[in-house]
């Protein structure tokens, strides 16, 4: 796999790796294999997604109806059946979900790029065949870039995670020593400290096993016994620290509570064992209001200690896979396209 394309590479189509592709007059790209397979180009897939959305989602749509809606000659039921199946599977919330969401987010720009390839200056002075090959090459390159970009963004996200962990540990460690009394004055500063506590639980699965409590002699025992249920939370969390626009799925079942200054990690299903420990867990209610992070990452506050802010009763999955509200506003031109698969995804997540 090449990771780099030198700018002035001559456009020869090295076909030893790929089957040759021809463009039929229906606009489909078919391979010239003995067994002709359809290539799902970005554009074609886009139309597919549109059609599916029109039909009410991947569950409601059938290959037959999709075929009708798409109206692409040469597209058979067979093609659509397998593609639809893959599409449905792709909607499942699992670890790769965030990759998909990055892809979705890039879809519009990818399309635009693709459209512009044909008109780039590289096309001048070439015959049809050369142009076609150049287009294919560029397209391929673009897909590579897209793939790599996803991986790179994720890598960056993981790295940020390690920073947060360290910072979190430092914070918790320092404050454990000082205890809680000196932190009454944390109120005014809680708007800042509050940021950190919100912050830690948001994106990164490994935080779930941190599970720290202030003054924690019982810590180790508690952590050990609860690791199992805490890890469950991992599945629901998509740690993509990407953009504001592309669907970020933050888990808001798990959220750190401020114990004055120490943060703790609580998940809803573990409420019961916590109730006994209420002397260790405190809530800093005012900091909720002034918390900038929650605006973006849309966590649900979780109150133990007898108080409840009404969200505790949420189903396990309900909060975790929702389309984040702070998705930045896009012009009306493309939003449905990008968002509808996500909406379907969330409903499927809940079913899951």
């Amino acid at each position, binding site marked *: *796999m090449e*990771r*780099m*394309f*030198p*700018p002035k590479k001559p456009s020869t189509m090295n076909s030893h790796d790929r089957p040759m592709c021809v463009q039929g007059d229906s606009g489909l790209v078919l391979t010239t294999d003995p067994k002709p397979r359809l290539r799902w180009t970005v554009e074609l897939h886009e139309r597919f997604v549109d059609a599916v959305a029109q039909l009410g989602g991947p569950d409601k749509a059938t290959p037959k109806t999709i075929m009708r809606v798409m109206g692409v000659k040469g597209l058979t039921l067979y093609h659509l059946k397998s593609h639809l199946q893959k599409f449905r599977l792709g909607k499942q919330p699992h670890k790769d979900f965030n990759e998909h969401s990055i892809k979705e*987010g*890039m879809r*519009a*720009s*990818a399309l*635009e*790029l693709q459209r512009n390839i044909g008109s780039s200056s590289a096309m001048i002075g070439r015959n049809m065949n050369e142009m076609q090959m150049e287009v294919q090459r*560029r397209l391929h*390159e*673009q897909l*590579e*870039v*897209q793939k*790599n*970009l996803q*991986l*790179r*963004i*994720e*890598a*960056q996200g*993981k*790295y*940020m995670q*390690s*920073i*947060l962990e*360290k*910072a979190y540990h430092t*914070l918790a460690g320092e404050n454990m020593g000082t205890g809680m009394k000196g932190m009454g004055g944390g109120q005014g*500063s809680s708007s*800042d*400290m509050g*940021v*950190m506590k919100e*912050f830690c639980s948001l994106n990164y699965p490994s935080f779930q096993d941190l599970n720290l409590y202030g003054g924690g002699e019982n810590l180790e025992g508690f952590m050990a016994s609860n690791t199992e249920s805490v890890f469950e939370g991992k599945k629901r969390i998509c740690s993509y*620290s*990407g*953009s*504001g*626009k*592309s669907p*970020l799925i933050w888990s808001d079942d798990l959220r750190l509570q401020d114990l004055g200054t120490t943060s703790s990690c609580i998940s809803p299903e573990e409420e019961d064992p916590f109730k006994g420990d209420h002397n260790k867990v405190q809530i800093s209610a005012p900091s909720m209001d002034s*918390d*900038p*992070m929650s*605006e*973006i990452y849309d966590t649900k506050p979780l109150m133990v200690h007898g108080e409840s802010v009404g969200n505790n009763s949420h189903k396990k999955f309900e909060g975790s896979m929702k389309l984040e*509200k*702070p998705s*930045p*506003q*896009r*012009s009306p031109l493309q939003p449905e396209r990008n968002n509808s698969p996500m909406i379907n995804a969330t409903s499927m997540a809940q079913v899951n």
Partner: protein
Amino acid sequence: MEIDMDPDMDVIHNLHFSRHTTPSSDDDYGCNWNHWSPLVNWDAFTGSHDDFHNLIDSIVSDGPAEYPSPDDHAASNSPSASITEQDDEDEETAAADDSKGLRLVHLLMAAAEALTGTTKSRELARVILVRLKDLVSHASHGSNMERLAAYFTDALRGLLEGAGGAHNHSKHHYNITYGSHHPRDDHHHHHQNDTLAAFQLLQDMSPYIKFGHFTANQAILEAVVHERRVHIVDYDIMEGVQWASLMQALASDKTGPPGPHLRITALSRTGTGRRSIATVQETGRRLTAFAASLGQPFTFHQCRLDPDETFKPSSLKLVRGEALVLNCMLNLPHLSYRAPDSIASFLSGAKELKPRLVTLVEEEVGSSVGGFVGRFMDSLHHYSAVFDSLEAGFPMQGRARALVERVFLGPRIVGSLARVYRTGEEVEERGSWGEWLGAAGLRGVPMSFANHCQAKLLLGLFNDGYRVEELGPNKLVLDWKSRRLLSASLWTSSSSSSDSH
């Protein structure tokens, strides 16, 4: 597409006032200024300065402007009329916001002008700034313009109080900007958390950070393909986030020959009072661990700068056969008040060391005519675009934006204005660092299709309004609407020859 930096009134109308704002709690405009005027003998201040005089008059009189009203802010054409009526609240709010925004801009510009003048006009500046202080607020419930104006007011106040000395330290900036908010001893500690949170937010809310990192990294990857050893010297590594994705890219290519050994040398500064999330050593440890997790061969070095932050190429440890890259990130969220000499010394190293590649990411500034006031207005325009871009993506998340503004944008505004003020003519002559490199004899490296492609795809992940612009074969620029924000450019020494192995 160049923004006209004529310090006339026209430039003010180009500022984008957002309409997605909640009404400010401070609703006393239109009243207090007149209340002030009898106390001040305007003639004494503004004497010969006609434009200025008119400006103050127009502000004081609070009547229709003597200069053409902006066409595209139709609602604000008659500020005085809409002030007193309460009929259509929404429209009025927007109009009021716009008109208040305009007023703030006028005041700011007036203050900036006053600052460049004689002692008398400095007094005027003080007066204006006090007035501004009443009108503006850092708080998240205010409008973009109010918060923006708050930071600019802080910056100007700092300059006025003679803080624009030769060695401005971050701590001082802190006091100006945060003094009233965090009068605690351990506010540095608080700021660490804030900084981290704000950093995370900035990454997620806007492409500023990723644009620079990814463009530079892609260029590096292309430049060092087939190399066995790569050595990157990073001018300002901060937390090292940039290198995470580079490492991933280097380590992920499992086919073909094994990837290169990566060595990163981070320049470290001895100064204190820096806002930093991590020391350079911590960053090094983190990067080492991350590389290990990827199976990427990696070593980390630190290179201390002189106390005056000059970089000496000789203090670098070089290894035979390695491809050398100099990485220079000067944009948000990097600190803006790196002494120009320091940056120059680093980039000069490019001449001496003959690296394979120099990656430079810096903020794009408009043309620097018009002296301090021109630069001031350009800066105002610039940060207005930045604030707008954040708001456009996250209109409901005022608190998050306010945090980012407070931690990163505010200090940057203060720092860059201080620099402009201090160095005056010098800055105008220098222009951008890219130009400096060009003038120093380095030649540009063409930006590849893949890189350009990556940038466009990256922007697709964020809200509409961002664009990538190719400003020369070796330079990509991130725009917000029509305003250039930052640029990534690639350079190499003309006679660069890698030590072949």
